[in-house]
């Protein structure tokens, strides 16, 4: 039963990811005084891409064709781990937060390889930048994860959420800092402004888009979908860890429904905050990433320090 719900939840997660992306775009358009496309537009795009006949470079090796699958599958696995509408899932036991980071790293490994496969300057450029961002984001992310994990003394996501729910509302400075750090890392990892501009067409400034420049058809669809899942995943992660209230604690239908409604509401709010932030700032210069992610690390470190100094015996 639990496994079934878990699978169902993962499927729902994957299905809703384009919607979240569409919502973010919708809000962003409104904020920029533009007439927004329908929130369902990402679905239409995906369907269109899946139907199209893919075009692949003659120079491509098997890595190029395999990478979209790896990226998509790792995103799906990650989605399977993260409690969405209910926690105490068996899948959360299969892999913990660190494995989640590992999955992301695996997807990125293949994506960067795919960027270099054709031997074009743009692909290599994207891969190189992606690796720099990853290297700088990883310590910050882990520090934030550590702050949570040490407070809750677990790296299991279900258990961590359970712990937060159980202790009730406590003003934890460490959590606030960790939230800040994790948010910055999420922005960097999902390639949003100010780190990467998902809407740009300038080959020379791209990061994520430069790696997938040569993809088309179903391959592109898989990559797009994968990154949509990743974006939503960070949203769910942040809202469910720091504000888990509302999540279903057992598998009763009414609780599950309430949990779903709660997470959708939280995501909707996040989906307003993200584009608002994006509208206010310009994309950073490439070599400011270190300061941005260094700041994320500092936040997480302060979280850890305030946990050590202020929160425990």
């Amino acid at each position, binding site marked *: 039963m639990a496994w079934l719900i878990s699978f169902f939840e993962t499927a729902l997660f994957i299905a809703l990811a384009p919607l979240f992306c569409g919502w973010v775009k919708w809000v962003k358009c409104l904020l920029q005084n533009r007439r927004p496309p329908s929130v369902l537009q990402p679905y239409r795009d995906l369907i269109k891409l899946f139907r199209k006949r893919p075009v692949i470079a003659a*120079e491509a090796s098997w890595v190029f064709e395999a990478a979209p699958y790896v990226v998509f599958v790792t995103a799906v696995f990650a989605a399977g781990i993260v409690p969405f509408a209910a926690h105490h899932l068996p899948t959360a036991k299969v892999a913990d937060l*660190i494995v989640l980071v*590992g999955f992301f790293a695996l997807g990125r490994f293949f994506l960067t390889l795919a960027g*270099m496969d054709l031997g074009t300057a743009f692909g290599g450029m994207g891969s190189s930048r992606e690796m*720099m961002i990853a290297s*700088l984001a990883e310590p910050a992310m882990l520090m934030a994860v*550590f702050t949570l994990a040490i407070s809750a003394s677990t790296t*299991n996501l279900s258990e961590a959420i359970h712990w937060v729910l159980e202790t009730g509302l406590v003003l934890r400075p460490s959590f606030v800092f960790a939230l800040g750090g994790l948010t910055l890392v999420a922005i960097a990892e999902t390639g949003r402004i100010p780190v990467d501009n998902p809407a740009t067409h300038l080959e020379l400034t791209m990061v994520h888009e430069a790696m997938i420049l040569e993809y088309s058809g179903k391959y592109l669809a898989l990559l797009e979908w994968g990154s949509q899942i990743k974006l939503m995943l960070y949203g769910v992660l942040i809202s469910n860890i720091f504000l888990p209230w509302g999540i279903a604690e057992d598998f009763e239908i009414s609780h599950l429904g309430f949990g779903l409604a709660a997470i959708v509401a939280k995501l909707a709010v996040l989906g307003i905050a993200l584009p608002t932030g994006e509208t206010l700032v310009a994309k950073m210069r490439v070599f400011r990433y270190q300061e941005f992610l260094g700041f994320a690390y500092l936040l997480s470190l302060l979280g850890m*320090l305030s946990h*050590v100094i202020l929160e425990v015996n």
Partner: protein
Amino acid sequence: MIVLCYFGLIAALLSGAVSLVLIAPEWSQRGLARLSGHIRLQSWSLQLTRTDPKRFHRAVDYGAFGLLGLSGAAVIASGLGALLADNAMFDQLPLGLPWLRWHIRLDALSGFFLMVIGVATLAVSLYGPGYVRSFRHGGYSLAALGFCTAWFIAGMELVVISDDAFMFMVAWELMSVASYFLVAFQHEHAANRRASFLYLLMAVVGAIHLILAFGVVAAFANGFTFDALRATHLSPLWASIAFGLALIGFGMKAGLVPLHAWLPEAHPVAPSHISALMSGVMLKVAVYGFIRFVFDILGDGHWEWGVCTLVLGTASAALGAMYAFQQNNIKRLLAYSSIENIGIVFMGLGLSMIFFAQGHRELGVIGLIAALYHVVNHAVFKTLLFLQAGTVLHQTHEGNLEQLGGLVKRLPRTSIIVLVGCVAISGLPPLNGFVSEWLTFQTALQVSALDSGILRSVIPVAAALMALTGAVTAAAFVKVYGVGFLGQPRSRHAAHARETRHLGMMAGPAFLAALCVLLGVFPGVVIAALGHVSDELLGETLASAYANGWLWLTPVSQNVASYSAPIVFLACVAAASIGYRLLTSPKAVPAVRVPRWDCGFGGLSARMQYTSSAFSQPLRRVFHPLFELREQTVTTPRGHLLGTPARLDFRLEIQDRSWRHLYEPLVRWIEAAARQIGRIQTGNIRTYIAYSFFTLLALLAVVS
């Protein structure tokens, strides 16, 4: 078990002897014929004698490496036996000093390391015959190569089973000297001579520290056997001194930062299968020595030692990864990455020592097991990668990433094996590198058990640096694979490379790749076996790790953290097969193949792809204080300064900081000292007589 182990040793030494016949082929061929005549192999030997020397050489190669393989297999078997046995086995050899026979001991720890040595030896023995053939044309002495390889392996095996300080040091020196000759094998290059000299120097300095470390302990003990040393109780001061000396001695061999500078010089210049053994195994022998000395002989540690080890380990891991990322030569990159991996091992050991000293025995065990797990993992994937670097070198004569590219098409099977190695060494699930790094993270996560707030906040910082290490390592191996194997060939050599035809050169690495997968998917089994080591050293096993069945890995308890490698692996396999079906299903619209996007200019060249230096430039710029960087662009103008230049040159030098801040002062100091000594040696005979005279007088004064 011990007999098996002896068998392995003897097989290794015999392999050396077999190699020696190459010194005088004519003579030995005749000798061999006569010998075989006695044992009725006349026809075979006659055939051998009559056939061309080529076949004879091949037979010797196969013989020598076959014996090595036999040695590896025997050592694995005996190691496995010892690892799983309940008690240690003892023996004495009738060698050594008259009053100190060589003591042999085979317990779980030595058994484990014997297995590590055995696995690598086995893979190398499969790989070797095909690989060394290329040296024959270079006019190198294959006899010396085979002989030293054999002694090198035998030396490592002896180190691991020795049970007294004297034999330990003899075996250690045997290992060092043999490997020195291997490093100096291709001695016609000045750089190689310099590297081998540096290696020898560092080995000697390291050995002196080890002798002193053993000496400190032995001074309080009655005897040189480890049993005697173990029984002594040292004052904290002396124990700390012994620990410090051992840390320097073993750390030098293991390549801990800042004692590492010799390693990236020495390891890459040896033939690739030797590099594989040095990086994959010899460093582990140093780890063995450290564990034996600190955990076993010194016994109860102080948490400060743990912090020292942790800090050095973290520094090695982070800097090793950074330096590795900046290398363009595959073998140098791999050598730096060894420093990084040794760093991770030492981090595990340091954490273990901290927890153990603070009274959390069960948490200390996780650290130790994480370290040991990483030892075997690193041995497997680093050997794999060095061997494959050898293959690339063998097939393209090019070890510089800037000249490679496109090998995934030219060497399809090799490139798949390399990909497995790259994923494993980058610490990505579901392969083995991830499991040990995950365990190390889990150890670090248990800091809330500690009382000291300082430790509670320092250890997570170390763990965050380890995360940085992991990401940079992944970047480094994306670079290796992306620049070396993907993209378009950057040189003629790379464009015309062909897959090796030698089966063994494929089988050895393939065997290791399979091990990478197995070790990654069944961590419970490995940890159960490692439990014997921790039980022996710390008196605890990690039973909780596999308490929920073989499917689950739960180092502390299921509520704290769990990872199910088999399920993840199964899911991966399922996803891969579904993906493959979708990809190849007849219903799917086939993709159109067109040239790459060239922005409409009319064709791309191999120069228009990212280079290795370019790929690592962003991190080089971000972490520039860590490197000695010299970057220079020189343009030659055509007519006026504002037009397109006629020529553009670029030079980039990246050096390790430790060179300038540690080695160069040291070298200057040594040179100054040598000059002082040189002043004494005037070359004048009268002066020497005067020296003798005064020495005599002094001696007389002492005697009287």
